């Protein structure tokens, strides 16, 4: 919708991108990236990031083509008026559904970590409910508030994410990273498709770019955001491999949490850091879930052309199925198999559709300019 306020700055977009991408995935990435290509797992984060880079580039292109409009409004325009309106319904639904399950899985993953490692006596339901209450509170506000919250929380996300790998290098055994050798490039491709799942969240830019203030540099926001995220994942995986070795990593559920545990600093004020890390990490998980859920609710609001009241009520109503969905996996093994399925399902809304839309729009623009040129030639 054009009449929305457009006041999100480039830096706010960058922080939205970073804080959405860095979420639950960072706890498992040292394991998932080393399953197939072993000591070369760090390569997976870069290649996975490259896939995301293509998709982000096409989202940036779309954002520049349709300034001030979300995907809800520009998908019909890309496909043309009649066909587009019909085609846009399943695509928008797909998007909203993907955000729904992504938010649900992230919440469950987080709850699982907290319950098993810090608050052993607290039921999982209590963690999920409090988390959803926070998200609901966020959904009662306008988009600019979401941008500001992301901007304020970004230090809480970036500092631990970079500090922990660097601190754990003290226990690193650098031989674990050797040899620099790749068995098969097929495995690399497989790994990068796996690790790609930790980058999901960037597709929300199709939504948040619409609120960028005129003159905001979308490309720079996308590039820097992705750069920081790749760097964070890369460092985490390198730290994981160098401290534990790729074989031991396969036996750890949350290798990054184990990394925190290994960096005990006796003589400091605090003796063990994992509780503090998890507490600070709440910010990161909250922004991930909050941004996803907010984008989903706001898309619904735009789709049905309603106001803030609709947004608040639907946020409240949809939390109930989200809560049940988050509780669906019976245990942690099932949770991981759900996540795997979700990753495969996610290729469609996160890679295929943005690239497809950008391609069609590009062809459209080319054809349009040729038609214009021929018109000019005629006169």
């Amino acid at each position, binding site marked *: 919708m054009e009449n929305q306020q457009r006041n999100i*700055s480039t830096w706010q977009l960058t922080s939205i991108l970073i804080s959405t991408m860095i979420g639950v995935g960072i706890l498992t990435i040292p394991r998932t990236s080393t399953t197939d290509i072993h000591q070369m797992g760090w390569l997976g984060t870069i290649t996975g990031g490259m896939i995301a880079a293509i998709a982000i580039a096409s989202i940036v292109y779309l954002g520049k083509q349709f300034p001030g409009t979300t995907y809800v409004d520009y998908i019909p325009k890309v496909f043309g008026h009649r066909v587009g309106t019909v085609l846009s319904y399943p695509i928008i639904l797909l998007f909203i559904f993907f955000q729904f399950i992504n938010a649900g899985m992230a919440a469950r993953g987080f709850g699982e970590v907290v319950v098993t490692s810090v608050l052993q006596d607290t039921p999982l339901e209590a*963690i999920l409910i409090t988390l959803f209450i*926070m998200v609901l509170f966020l959904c009662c506000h306008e988009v600019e508030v979401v941008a500001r919250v992301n901007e304020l929380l970004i230090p809480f996300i970036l500092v631990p994410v970079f500090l922990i790998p660097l601190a754990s290098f003290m226990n690193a055994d650098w031989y674990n990273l050797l040899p620099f050798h790749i068995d098969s490039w097929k495995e690399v491709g497989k790994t990068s498709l796996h690790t790609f799942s930790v980058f999901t969240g960037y597709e929300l830019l199709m939504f948040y770019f619409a609120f960028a203030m005129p003159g905001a540099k979308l490309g720079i926001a996308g590039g820097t955001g992705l750069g920081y995220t790749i760097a964070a994942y890369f460092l985490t995986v390198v730290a994981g491999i160098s401290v534990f070795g790729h074989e031991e990593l396969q036996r750890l559920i949350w290798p990054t949490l184990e990394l925190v545990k290994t960096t005990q600093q006796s003589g400091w004020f605090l003796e063990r850091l994992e509780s503090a890390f998890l*507490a600070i990490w709440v910010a990161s998980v*909250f922004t991930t879930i909050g941004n996803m859920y907010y984008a989903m609710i706001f898309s619904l609001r735009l789709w049905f052309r309603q106001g803030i009241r609709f947004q608040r009520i639907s946020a409240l109503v949809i939390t109930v199925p989200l809560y049940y969905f988050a509780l669906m996996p019976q245990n942690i093994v099932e949770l991981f198999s759900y996540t795997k399925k979700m990753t495969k399902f996610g290729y469609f809304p996160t890679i295929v559709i943005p690239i497809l839309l950008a391609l069609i729009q590009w062809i459209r623009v080319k054809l349009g300019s040729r038609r214009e040129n021929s018109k000019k030639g005629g006169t």
Partner: protein
Amino acid sequence: MSQFWKAWQKRKDTLQEKGLKDHANKSMESVSDLRLTTSVDENISLIEYQLGKSDDLVVRRFQVKSGKDAAIIFLDGMVDRNIISDFIIRHMTNPNSTYDDPATNEMDSTDGLRQVIRNILSGSAVLMIQGSSNAFLNNTRGWDRRSVEEPQTESVVRGPRDGFCETLCVNSALIRFRLKDPNLRVRHMVVGQRTQTDIYVMYIEGLAHPPMVQEILSRIERLNMDSVLESGYIEQMIQDRRWSPFPQIQNTERPDKVVANLLEGKVGILVDGTPFGLIAPAVISQFYQSPEDYYERFYIATLIRFIRVISISIALLLPSLYIAFSAFHPEMIPSRLVIAMAAGRSTVPFPSLIEALFMELAIEILREASVRLPGPIGPTIGIVGALVVGEAAVSAGLVSPVMVIIVAVTTIGSFASPSYSAAIAIRMLRFPVMLLAGMFGLYGIMLFLIVILIHLSSLKSFGVPYMTPLSPLNLSGMKDLFIRAPHHLLNKRPTMFHVQDKIRMREEENKE
């Protein structure tokens, strides 16, 4: 074209001013707006009727030198009697005098009853002469007022010692005295149907963002309340979000603070009858910034700001961190300390949440009581309460010694904030964090902080987001947020209040 534009602007301004003046008169609606007659006796009975024959209404009849009957009407105690006797009565009856009007320095005349009543109520002496329907309104206000004293709530080590007092004109003079800028504008308004309180809205034209000034003026104008006894009434009625625990308008007793804020493009509001002026818009930095920061050298000013930020965080979080650590995460505390803490807590029968709530409640009672206590015995009771009760509670096994230290540090920390009303918000929010920490440990604390952060991000004070310059990020404002950059680097005004003249000082002339 620009000529036309200017003329248009001027016309708009005069119309607006007229509208504001009309409004000031509108709130006297209970008085019927009659014209005065030419007979003094009739006029006196009209006024006496409107004021219900109050016994403090003084009517002094005399004859002017031409032999006409005249009368002065004023309220007892609100006027300076010397002015009336020397410059009105003696002057008007003196046969040598060649003038027909009184010799007071501020005089106006009207024939409207409503205006006469209004002026009598605000301390004017009204002079009426037989045969004329015009009454002279002499400003003879002069009641006993407190002199300018050092502010009680915002004392500084270095800086001016004068603070606002209860009289509006003295307060505005304190500002004028520091700011001799011809562009300083003062808009007078009257709020309160019954109290008829005078309000000055001050801003610097060419600095303050005009739509913001307009917004503040129109919000005050729209107020429809019967009394304004303190600036807090105005503050709570015109702030953006009335349900928020955070003050969205700053209050201060210090004229130098008001002037500094006017120079940043903000708007000052002074209310008659209170030493507390208001500054709008307010942002998060009001919690820990003091005018003293600019008077001292910037190293120490920056350091003190950091100390204030730390002490505010302590005031908010320390008790809940204690609860979280001792109840949920004892593994985080160094092992020797945890043994000492466990030894101290071994006799305490309550969980740490109850222990902390109990002690915090005790200290709040002590604090509130010490405000009410008569001056000389205040410190004594403080010592008895804090030391004796604290010591006895530990030896009785009710609380652990660590808890006493934490409560003491928390309380002192909450008073390190230079703004008392901002610190109230922090003191209040301490209790919900403690409850959440008792339920979920560090996770609960983080939950609460995020909720507060969302709320703070959604707050706006007259169009300025509350968390500026942190978010939206404003690099020019960051120079004066946590660090106080040296003055020669603060050569531009912060842009977050939409100032129009951005240059504070020209750099070339200030080179070393």
